[in-house]
């Protein structure tokens, strides 16, 4: 048996332990375990306290979140219908304050809505539905709100509830409707502009063609002095050409692009004149009543255009009423503020003259009301209308910086409202220019147009008047000729749009050679001038294509007389 280092043998040590003298010998005692247990209890008490604090903090956080949420949140006991919780947003949605606590739907809403909502929430609790979109809810004060509602069942302390979230969509819905309306208007205005540009382009080409036909017919008329039949035919061609020219002119007016004089005019005066004319042409079964509420009626306008608007609208109305009923014309002043401007993007800020034309006619069907301002859109029988009337009105109104709107109910009638910006100055009397109708003779005219046909027409007209012509299809050649023969040339007639050099440039070059030679500019398309409107100093007169022989003679005579008078002075 080995001896441990302290001199006590293993056996002795074992004996000591058996006697209970070993280091670890202890009578049975639970003290250590008890201590550990107490320590654990204390630890668990502290943990409980800690977790209680955390729970309390969480509770406060969730209460804050609950009330901070912008959506309305409620917890409803479906058995009793009573609210267990309801957050601030929900309370605000239904205008309740702490003085009158919201206890149930029945206390917050009219009976039927309360019942419907409770039923909906019941379905959400059962899982039948999860979400309802744009629910219309009547409040006790009569207001209507729209809400998106979602909900599901929750269990709190062994009792079943439904938790529902109400998102107030009233504002969003309104905004959405306004947006859609706005977008539709923008769309419409863009479409109108596109159609107008197209129509304008077509009209320009037509004018050149009609100009050629009409010019040649007029020349031929002079040459067949005795042939009555032929003369009649030619006169009919000329008449048809004039009508065609009128239509293209109207088409051009759709696109704001016609060259019109805008002067301050008294709108009410034009209405009066137009009504006299209308009363003479419409049957007695159509009555026209005018109510004038406008304090200011001066509008910077084209007299003929405004007159056309009134006549067209009233004629349409008479037709819509099957020539029996009342047409009411009302005028007033309207101040366009930012709100109105937002609703109607085409309007401008400031004071406007408002013209309203109402009838008691058949009205315009909803599905076509958006298209009535399109050119060639008509509901009349084939041959009875061009479909240009309202599009021309639209163009004229646009030209005046105005806006036209239509409100129509089928079977009740239609009202057109037109806003015109008021002019700054009151109307002044306009003095008409007088001129001497006797045509000039024996003048040498330099005629420039890149269209060979029009060059021929020009030459014919001028020679028929008793004048001489030097013609060029190329402006560079014309300028070269003028540089060599400046003294012998009395006047220059030039087209606007030409390759290599336009009419304005040519006029400038000619005046660089000789200053007092009058230059008459012809144009079929006012857009060209809109682009170049910076400088018309070298142009004596502008004549719109297609022009008649008479018109050209008149203009030429006027400019040459003016030069003569200037030289005489």
């Amino acid at each position, binding site marked *: 048996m080995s001896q441990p280092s302290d001199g006590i043998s293993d*056996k002795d040590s*074992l*004996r000591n*332990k*058996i*006697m*209970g*003298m*070993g*280091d*670890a*010998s*202890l*009578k*049975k*005692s*639970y003290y*250590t*375990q008890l201590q550990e247990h107490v320590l654990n209890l204390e630890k668990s008490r502290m943990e409980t306290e800690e977790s209680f604090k955390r729970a309390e903090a969480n509770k406060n956080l969730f209460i804050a979140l609950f009330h901070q949420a912008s959506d309305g949140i409620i917890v409803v006991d479906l058995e009793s219908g009573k609210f267990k919780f309801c957050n601030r947003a929900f309370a605000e949605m239904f205008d309740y304050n702490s003085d009158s606590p919201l206890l149930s739907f029945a206390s917050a809403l009219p009976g039927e809505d309360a019942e419907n909502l409770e039923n909906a929430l019941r379905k959400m609790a059962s899982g039948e539905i999860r979400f309802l979109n744009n629910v219309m809810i009547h409040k006790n004060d009569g207001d209507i709100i729209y809400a998106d509602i979602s909900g599901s069942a929750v269990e709190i302390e062994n009792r079943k509830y439904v938790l529902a979230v109400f998102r107030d969509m009233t504002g969003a819905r309104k905004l959405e409707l306004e947006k859609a309306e706005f977008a539709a208007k923008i769309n419409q205005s863009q479409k109108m502009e596109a159609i107008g540009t197209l129509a304008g382009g077509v009209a320009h080409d037509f004018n050149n063609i009609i100009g050629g036909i009409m010019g040649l017919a007029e020349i031929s008329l002079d040459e067949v002095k005795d042939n009555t039949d032929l003369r009649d035919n030619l006169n009919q061609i000329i008449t048809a050409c004039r009508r065609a020219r009128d239509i293209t002119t109207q088409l051009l007016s759709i696109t704001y692009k016609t060259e019109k004089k805008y002067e301050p005019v008294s709108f009410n005066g034009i209405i009066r004149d137009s009504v006299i004319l209308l009363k003479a042409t419409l049957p007695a079964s159509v009555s026209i009543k005018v109510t004038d509420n406008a304090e200011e009626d001066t509008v910077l306008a084209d007299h003929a255009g405004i007159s056309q608007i009134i006549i067209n609208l009233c004629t349409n109305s008479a037709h819509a009423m099957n020539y029996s009923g009342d047409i009411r014309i009302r005028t007033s002043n309207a101040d366009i503020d930012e709100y109105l401007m937002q609703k109607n993007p085409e309007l401008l800020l400031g004071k406007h003259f408002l013209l309203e034309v109402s009838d008691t006619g058949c009205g315009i069907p909803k599905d076509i009301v958006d298209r009535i301002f399109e050119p060639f859109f008509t509901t009349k029988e084939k041959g009875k209308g061009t479909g240009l009337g309202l599009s021309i009105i639209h163009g004229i109104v646009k030209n005046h910086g105005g806006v036209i709107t239509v409100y129509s109910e089928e079977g009740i009638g239609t009202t057109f409202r037109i806003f015109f910006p008021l002019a700054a100055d009151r109307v002044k009397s306009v003095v008409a220019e007088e001129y001497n109708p006797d045509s000039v003779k024996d003048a040498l005219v330099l005629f420039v147009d890149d269209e060979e046909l029009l060059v021929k027409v020009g030459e014919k007209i001028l020679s028929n008047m008793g004048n001489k012509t030097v013609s060029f299809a190329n402006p560079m050649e014309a300028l070269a000729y003028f540089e060599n023969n400046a003294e012998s040339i009395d006047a220059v007639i030039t087209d606007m749009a030409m390759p290599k050099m336009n009419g304005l440039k040519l006029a400038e070059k000619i005046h660089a050679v000789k200053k007092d030679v009058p230059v008459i500019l012809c144009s079929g398309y006012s857009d060209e001038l809109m682009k170049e409107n910076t400088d018309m100093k070298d142009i004596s007169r502008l004549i719109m294509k297609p022009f008649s022989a008479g018109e050209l003679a008149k203009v030429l005579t006027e400019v040459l007389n003016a030069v003569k008078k200037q030289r005489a002075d």
Partner: protein
Amino acid sequence: MKEYSSIPLRKFVAPEFLFGSGAIPMLSRYIKNLGVKKILLVSDPGVMNAGWVSVVEKQIKDTHIPHVLFTDVSPNPRDCEVMTGAEIYQKESCDMIVAVGGGSPMDCAKGIGIVCINKSHISEFEGVDKIPLPGPPLVCIPTTSGTSADISQFSIILDSVRKVKMAIVSKILVPDAALIDPVTLSTMDAKLTAETGMDALVHAFEAYVSNASSPITDLNALRAVELIRKNLVGMIKCGGKGEEADNMMLGSLLAGLAFSNASLGIVHAMAHALGGFLDLRHGECNAILLEHAVNYNYESAHEKYNDLASAMGIETKGMTDSQIKNALTESIGKLRYDSGIRHGFSALGLKKDEIPFLADYALSDICIVTNPREALKSEIEELYVAAF
């Protein structure tokens, strides 16, 4: 002033015990005072048949505290039985153990308790002071007058693989309370009474001559020897009833208090080897071995053995040591014979060639440590042969 006392330092540990008539009904008071929630009641089939389990269950039921009964315990309780009991204890969420019966259920209950609390296999605790934490509250109700497991620091468990008895020794094993009522002895048969009675006598003898004995243990041991010597045969004759039984119960208790603190000796070491290897009955082995061990040990503790001879009723005055030794071994042999144990180990199935093997185990048994004489293997073998 003396620099030191000549009395060697000793510790004496005993549980709270109630001795006397009406001890068992006090159980309910203990249960209530401990404030427990569920009880594991450990016993064995023999005790159950004797009716003591239902007596105890009635006491438990009076407290309205639920309990689970575990009775799968053999005469030499096995490790696997301890582990099964521990499993039931934990599964049923028990927090107290009550053991009723002889040494087997009480040793098993001690094992279950420490296994449950320390979460280790029972074999981890073999040896002295190897138990880190005490088991749950344990109240023991002895029904034999011999083992004294109800007050001892011992738990002897059979290692069923190695076939050895593991001695688990620790003051922590001493139960919380023992409720000792001699009435329980009335159901023992003569054989069991003889075996347990002789076991108690060996406890007293070995504790008295133990090299760890003390004046306190000596007092108990000598009185125990007297009581057992005077009452054992009478108790067997009157069937476990009457004054003899009361005295035997007291003798067993006093022997227990002595050996629990002074430990044992070579008889127990050799008996443990036999019990482990051949599953022989503990008391019977002890009874057969005692006189041979006294003969062997006598020279090493002759004064103490002379005291024991007096306690055995021998008038030693004027006798030589050798005469006393012979008289003592003879008186032990006579008591054994009178109590009905009249055979040697050959009758119990021991084979001579197994003896060296048993001697090895006996030498490594914890009880050998406190034997007054340090034994050699050959000497132990000779003792087995002497008792053959």
